């Protein structure tokens, strides 16, 4: 049965409401706009609720649809339940609070985006400035941060990362050795796999792989932790107490990472070389002593230093971007997720760009 029954009575359209008009039910009806369009000559619209059994705001929606369709005609609401009319009156009372928002102009939109880009670049430099100022304040002994926190992050970013760094570095060393051995054994130069693995780990892969792990593990954690503090206005609570969130939240994280990155890199180099030994000595039967001697001859001290400089820079990049995206996080729960993603993606991109710059630089300096 239809929930709305239309009858024409001279120039009056009578809308008969039937059965239950409730949100949890199903209503079948012809659209009032279509009915009115079909039958010209209607001047008045009236309602008949005598067969109406039950209603809630579902009916309000329909009645307003009728009002909309019958604009310019006379509407007789006497047949409607009194409470329904009160309901509608309440929503009209609400119109008083009305506010205005205009449509967005295309050029304004383009301009805004360009402005945003500039602002975001300016934002990085400003944040860099804040970090430097916080460090200057620390040297002067005026900053709000604690060594306890730094130690916490040393533990958190360094010691707790050892298992994953071990696993990845070992596998990277192992892969390098496999790939190298296949080629080198063709020339009978299998022992040079020690040079390949050693140099690649120390100069490139140790720092790079540690950086990538740290970006995913630590940078993301920084962004999420600071971002959610931002959402719950905890960073504002620092500001109103005249404590800089940069000092209290960022400096300990940066310092912790700064202290641990070189150590993790050295460790990764070492484990990577172990991976190489595993393949060359236990699987391919090279002599352990010869392999070690070959490795020692291949790696110079400045190779190790270049790796450490890279690792330390990577650590700074990861900490910086993690904290920055966290602090700039918008005030809603989805923003925490997107700022975490940003922290990881930006960090890894920045690592690779930085690595390329280092490659050119070290080549020019001949180290």
């Amino acid at each position, binding site marked *: 049965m239809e929930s709305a029954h239309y009858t024409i009575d001279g120039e009056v359209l009578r809308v008969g409401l039937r059965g239950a008009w409730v*949100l*949890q039910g199903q209503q079948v009806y012809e659209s009032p706009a279509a009915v009115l369009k079909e039958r010209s000559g209607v001047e008045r619209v009236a309602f008949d609720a005598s067969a109406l059994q039950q209603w809630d705001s579902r009916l309000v*929606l329909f009645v307003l649809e009728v009002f909309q369709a019958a604009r310019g005609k006379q509407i007789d609401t006497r047949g409607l339940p009194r409470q329904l009319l009160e309901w509608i009156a309440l*929503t009209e009372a*609400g119109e008083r609070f009305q*506010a205005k*928002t205009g449509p967005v102009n295309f050029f304004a939109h383009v301009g805004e985006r360009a402005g945003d880009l500039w602002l975001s670049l300016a934002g990085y430099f400003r944040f860099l400035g804040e970090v430097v100022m916080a460090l200057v304040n620390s040297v002067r002994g005026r900053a709000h941060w604690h060594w306890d926190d730094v130690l916490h992050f040393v533990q958190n970013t360094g010691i707790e990362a050892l298992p994953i760094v071990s696993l990845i570095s070992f596998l990277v060393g192992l892969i390098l050795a496999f790939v190298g051995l296949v080629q080198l054994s063709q020339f009978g130069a299998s022992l040079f796999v020690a040079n390949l693995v050693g140099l690649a780990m120390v100069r490139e892969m140790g720092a790079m792989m540690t950086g990538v792990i740290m970006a995913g593990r630590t940078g993301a954690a920084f962004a999420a932790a600071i971002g959610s503090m931002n959402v719950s206005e905890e960073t504002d609570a620092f500001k109103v107490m005249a404590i800089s969130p940069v000092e209290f939240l960022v400096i300990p994280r940066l310092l912790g990472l700064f202290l641990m990155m070189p150590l993790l890199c050295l460790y990764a180099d070492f484990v990577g070389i172990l991976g190489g030994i595993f393949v060359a000595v236990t699987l391919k039967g090279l002599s352990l002593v010869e392999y070690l001697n070959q490795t020692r001859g291949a790696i110079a001290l400045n190779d190790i230093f270049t790796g450490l400089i890279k690792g330390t820079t990577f650590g700074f990049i990861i900490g910086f971007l993690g904290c920055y995206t966290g602090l700039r996080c*918008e005030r*809603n729960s989805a923003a925490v997720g997107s700022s975490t993603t940003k922290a990881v993606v930006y960090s890894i991109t920045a690592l690779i760009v930085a690595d390329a710059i280092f490659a050119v630089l070290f080549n020019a300096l001949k180290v």
Partner: protein
Amino acid sequence: MTLINDRTDAIYVESLTMGYGDTVVLKDVAFSVKRGSIFIVMGGSGCGKSTLLKHLIGLKEPLAGSVFLSGVDYWNADEATQLSVLRKQGVLFQGGALWSTLTLLENVALPLKEFTTLSQADCNALARLKLALVGLVGFEDAYPANISGGMKKRAGLARAMALDPDILFFDEPSAGLDPVTSRNLDDLILKIRDSLGTTVVIVTHELSSIFNIGEDAIFLDSQTKTLLAQASPKTLAQSGPQSVRAFLTRI
């Protein structure tokens, strides 16, 4: 004044004991809420008002006793019945608890989309109406982070009313609002009850609200961990137990 309790009342609570783990917060609570009335839950901070509320909205299971919601023994009902009971209740949380990644319109339209067969356009139209009901025309596309505390409460109310609930629950609706805004919210609650016949349960210790709109009230006491009295606020202020009178007549 004697109250005749009836399991078919909007809410009927029988020898309810509540707590967290082994600590009992309130014991042997019994009261009932008449359909269409405005019911106040009051008591000092930490006496268990929010805890009681959690038991009435299906968030927390009693240690002992029963809660009848619209005649259904909620904690002994099967899941389908529980869900249908919950769908006829609306809750306004203390902070509004609006979903921060959705606009106000999306916040209100979400329950409509999930629980009715209305089209997307109808859901939005109805959500717009509910927002108009609480005076938020023009803020449909605003995000919760960008509106004031009073507006968040009103938007939360619109969302609570999305499915035309039979019972509306409020946890400290006037907390953090200025007297005028909180007065307006009281008026709104009263209007909604008068025109829609909704049963309203309010947790509050705002004296002006208690006397302005409260028709029936209970007082919870943290010392004895019991319900001290149930009566209308005026009766309680005149002839309630000593500690309740002290609470209601502090100026």
